């Protein structure tokens, strides 16, 4: 069954398979021969820079909790998938998007502080997921993947989805970067200045939701925030300006993703890929903190 599906994909999307078969030549390691490692690597190399540049904004705009709430909505997404016998990947994406946009909408209108608004949504989606999942008994596999992620099970359809998201998100970052920076620094100032704050905030929330849900597939809900935050935090140690931060974060993120995947698939390691990736990123963070300390940034 799986083999048939793989064959079909090979017929409909030959280019991608050709591209993937080049990977062992670029990285001459034994593990690169297997198809699932190739797909995982390609997926991570797409996802890592997206998570990194969205993560820089998450750090600068102090939105870590926001990202966390979206990632936990994936749990409710799994539950809805169960209820309606739909593909949980799609229900996760749709629900993540809805939760992200709803939080943004309530936050913009409500006088409650943003962490309170997010906390309300956060608990609601978790409670919903728990209620449904507790009713069904044979869902351990789905829940496990939700918790720990499964980048090595990514298929070519999902790779195409990731590529589409990559194009849209990078376009948004290139053209929206300046205004996002403006809004992040001071929304009311940007508003006075006829920047369409609402449009940018909703677009950002939507893209962040999509990146977060894909990251849930990759590293699991427990580590999504790390995927966004750790490279950005390291980058902030290396660079003083927002622009420099983006490049540093992308470099650190891609490096950790590739290194983490390669190590996790070695026979002597055989570890969870997501966790290994985050550990490498954390090592980068330690180095960056050391660099910042030596440079005497402690006053900042």
């Amino acid at each position, binding site marked *: 069954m799986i083999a048939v599906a793989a064959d079909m994909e090979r017929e409909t999307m030959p280019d991608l398979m050709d591209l993937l078969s080049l990977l062992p030549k670029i990285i001459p390691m034994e593990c690169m021969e297997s198809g699932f490692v190739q797909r995982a690597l390609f997926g991570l190399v797409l996802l890592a820079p997206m998570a990194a540049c969205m993560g820089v904004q998450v750090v*600068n705009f*102090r939105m870590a909790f926001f990202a966390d709430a979206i990632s936990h909505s994936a749990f409710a997404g799994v539950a809805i998938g169960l209820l309606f016998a739909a593909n949980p990947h799609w229900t996760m994406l749709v629900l993540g998007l809805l939760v992200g946009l709803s939080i943004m909408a309530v936050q913009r209108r409500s006088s409650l502080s943003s962490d309170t608004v997010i906390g309300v949504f956060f608990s609601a989606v978790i409670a919903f997921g728990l209620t449904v999942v507790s009713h069904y008994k044979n869902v351990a596999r789905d829940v496990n993947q939700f918790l720990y992620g499964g980048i090595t099970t990514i298929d070519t359809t999902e790779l195409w989805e990731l590529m589409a998201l990559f194009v849209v998100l990078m376009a948004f970052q290139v*053209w*929206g970067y*300046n*205004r996002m*920076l*403006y809004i*992040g*620094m*001071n929304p*009311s*100032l*940007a*508003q*006075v*200045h*006829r*920047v369409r704050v609402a449009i940018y905030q909703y677009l950002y929330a939507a893209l962040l939701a999509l990146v977060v849900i894909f990251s849930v597939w990759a590293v699991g809900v427990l580590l999504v925030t790390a995927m966004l935050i750790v490279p950005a935090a390291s980058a*902030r140690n290396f*660079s*003083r*300006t*927002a622009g420099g*931060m983006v490049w540093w974060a992308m470099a650190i993120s891609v490096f950790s993703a590739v290194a983490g995947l390669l190590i996790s698939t070695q026979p002597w390691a055989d570890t969870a890929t997501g966790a290994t990736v985050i550990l490498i990123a954390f090592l980068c963070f330690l180095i960056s903190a050391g660099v910042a300390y030596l440079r005497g940034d402690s006053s*900042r």
Partner: protein
Amino acid sequence: MSNPSSFPDPVQTPAIRIQNLTVSYGPKPALLDINLTIDPGLLVGVIGPNGSGKSTFVKSILGFVKRDIGDVYIQGIPTEKAKGLVAYVPQRGAVDWDFPITVREVALMGRYGDLPWYRQPSGKDHAIVDDALEMVRMQEFSDRQIGQLSGGQQQRVFMARALAQGADILLLDEPFAGVDAATERAILDVLDRAKEAGKTLVVVHHDLATAAEYFDRLVLIKQRLYAYGTPAEVLHEDLLSEVYEGRLRVFADLVGNRGDK
């Protein structure tokens, strides 16, 4: 009360015209029936006790708050449509100073409103930013992260942003709050330079002791507009004691000694 007759060129469009402005939060009005015309080229101080509606007043000019009734015109254009004609310098407390952004990048933000979303700032935009930084005497700090500046320098960065925007009207929210005397001088110097360049400046101010010295005109607000005019006209002891309800004995002498400018 409005439109002091002493000012030249009455045919000019007023910089700011406010008619019957009432704003309320819940049942209590924050501003009640304000009528005021501010001519261009003036340095105007907005004074009044805490909670008197000074911030609401500024936000109404920006078109930020929902008005119950009344109209606000910026250079003859309703404020909702006049975005970009007014530049705003926020209180220092309203800015995240850890934000990883340099002085120059902040000033450059003043150009974003005029750029279509698909365009990056051009050489002309950078030249305008250079001028703005020069005007507030901050060129040498261009590449500093904004957290690494003194209070007065931080204030000037956001002045530069406002100037780079190219607006003729600048609103400043408590620029002198929490800075030392020397810094206050430096900021005032920048305000004077902006005025010489033909800008209209409206400055929320909390210190009556310096109000007469700093500003051409004063707006005295406590919900209602109590007075608008030259410092000599506004800083009357009976007027002040009515607005500040006797909390201001200290200033009684001061008002007697100062006042014509």
